[in-house]
């Protein structure tokens, strides 16, 4: 244990960890986040708060993380490099830690051209690997990125990162994961998996390099709401949606139920994949389904710490 993170404790105790994503609202109503946190509290071990997901302005991940914390659920705040330079990022890290947040997930962030302010100026002062290293430097070396000392109360975050086994160049993905772990990432959440074959090939390469022993890997799961959603995802950058899943969704009488079934089957399969330390459920705008999936996948009760 390097940090006081509850999430880190669960990993080090060897539990199969379950995290899920909460999308903060496009307004200033914290109650939306609190309600999700109450609903998910006994079903997951940590909640990701997205940081202006798909470059759409939303309640900030840090504020949302605070609401989650107030409801007794462990928040994982996402932090993207798109919107803040190294001064803003470090300042927000201090702020988040001061509020009691102990887990952070460093990401590059979707390009602003996808969001609701496509004419904005992006930042990308640091990339995700540099951000991971910055968070580690603040914690382990008690220094800001500039080298200036943090004399006291350094933020001691449990550091997460993402990896996309479905992006290209495929062979480089595992090497990039290694770079993230080298930089200081302790847990990894993957892009949502639909192409299990490619994910297994990815994990094989992960095991070959022993990366599963250096970081906890959470496999990404997204329950599909409809065949239409599946077809849409086929065109999302960095995602692979196999035709057999679209066909299965199309043929289903109850598409939502089929989406849940697929998610549950995938989790059951992933439990047996060596090196997978847990699952991360991204039920985009469908947070209410998470307890159903967790229960049906046999992941209850969640461990006490």
């Amino acid at each position, binding site marked *: 244990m390097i940090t006081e993170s509850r999430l880190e404790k669960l990993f080090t105790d060897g539990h199969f960890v379950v995290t899920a994503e909460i999308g903060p609202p496009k307004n200033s109503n914290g109650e939306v986040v609190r309600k999700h946190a109450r609903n998910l509290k006994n079903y997951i071990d940590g909640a990701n708060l997205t940081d202006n997901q798909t470059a759409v302005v939303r309640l900030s991940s840090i504020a949302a993380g605070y609401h989650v914390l107030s409801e007794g659920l462990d928040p994982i705040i996402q932090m993207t490099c798109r919107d803040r330079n190294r001064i803003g990022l470090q300042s927000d890290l201090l702020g988040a830690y001061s509020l009691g947040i102990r887990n952070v997930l460093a990401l590059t962030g979707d390009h602003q051209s996808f969001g609701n302010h496509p004419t904005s100026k992006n930042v990308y002062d*640091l990339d995700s*690997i540099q951000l991971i290293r910055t968070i580690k430097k603040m914690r382990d070396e008690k220094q800001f990125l500039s080298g200036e000392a943090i004399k006291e109360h350094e933020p001691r975050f449990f550091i997460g990162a993402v990896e996309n086994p479905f992006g290209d160049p495929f062979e*480089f993905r595992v090497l990039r994961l290694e770079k993230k772990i080298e930089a200081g990432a302790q847990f990894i959440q993957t892009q949502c998996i639909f192409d299990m074959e490619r994910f297994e090939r990815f994990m094989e390469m992960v095991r070959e390099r022993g990366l599963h022993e250096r970081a906890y890997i959470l496999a990404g799961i997204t329950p599909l709401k409809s065949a239409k959603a599946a077809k849409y995802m086929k065109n999302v950058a*960095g995602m692979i949606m196999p035709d057999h899943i679209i066909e299965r969704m199309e043929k289903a009488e109850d598409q939502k139920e089929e989406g849940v079934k697929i998610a549950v089957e995938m989790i059951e399969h992933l439990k047996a994949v060596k090196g997978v330390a847990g699952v991360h459920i991204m039920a985009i705008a469908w947070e209410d389904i998470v307890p159903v999936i967790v229960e049906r996948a046999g992941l209850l009760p969640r461990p006490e710490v």
Partner: protein
Amino acid sequence: MIVAERKPIEEIIKMVEKHENILVLGCGGCVTVCLAGGEKEAEQLATTLRLYFQKENKQFKTITTTITRQCDPEYVKSVAEEVAKADAVLSTACGVGVQFMAENYPGKWVYPALNTKFAGANLELGVWGERCGLCGECILHLTGGVCPVIRCSKSLLNGPCGGSQNGKCEVSSEIDCAWQLIYDRLKSLNSLDLILKIQPPKDWSKARDGGPRKVIKEEVRL
């Protein structure tokens, strides 16, 4: 070279309509090469404006001339007489030329006829592509000659983002993923070890973020 393209004519008309006597000043440098603001384009622009204002029954005269470079004092000073005769100057140079003319002729409006786009190369006939972000500290030796600062939509220094797929950028399938290009180049050069190393944060003070920059070559100063 600096690549530019002409502004929409409606926009140019709005800039110059309050004047009666305009010097349309072409530039023989980069904008001539990228077919945006050389002698021919300056003349075409002057003709278009004259015809437009003629139709509008408005008094409007043009003088057209082109100098070798609008970013060089020697050439800029050579048009002093023409500038004096005109109410305003419509420059078909890049933003550098427009500013340098304005600097040299205080009290005279100098309007930009072009939108200055980027530092790039001529990829094929009629097509130019951005190649340099003018960041002040070149890292092309680390990336196999492909610049991630300007060719990656997110300026990433440590590899592709999650949106890179089939060699294309998440922003558009028209854009090559710079990191796929870098990966392929380094693989063919047997130098993949270069991208396994973690690149530290960039010193952006060498780029625009350090404020306007100057290059001084002491040995040639007077």
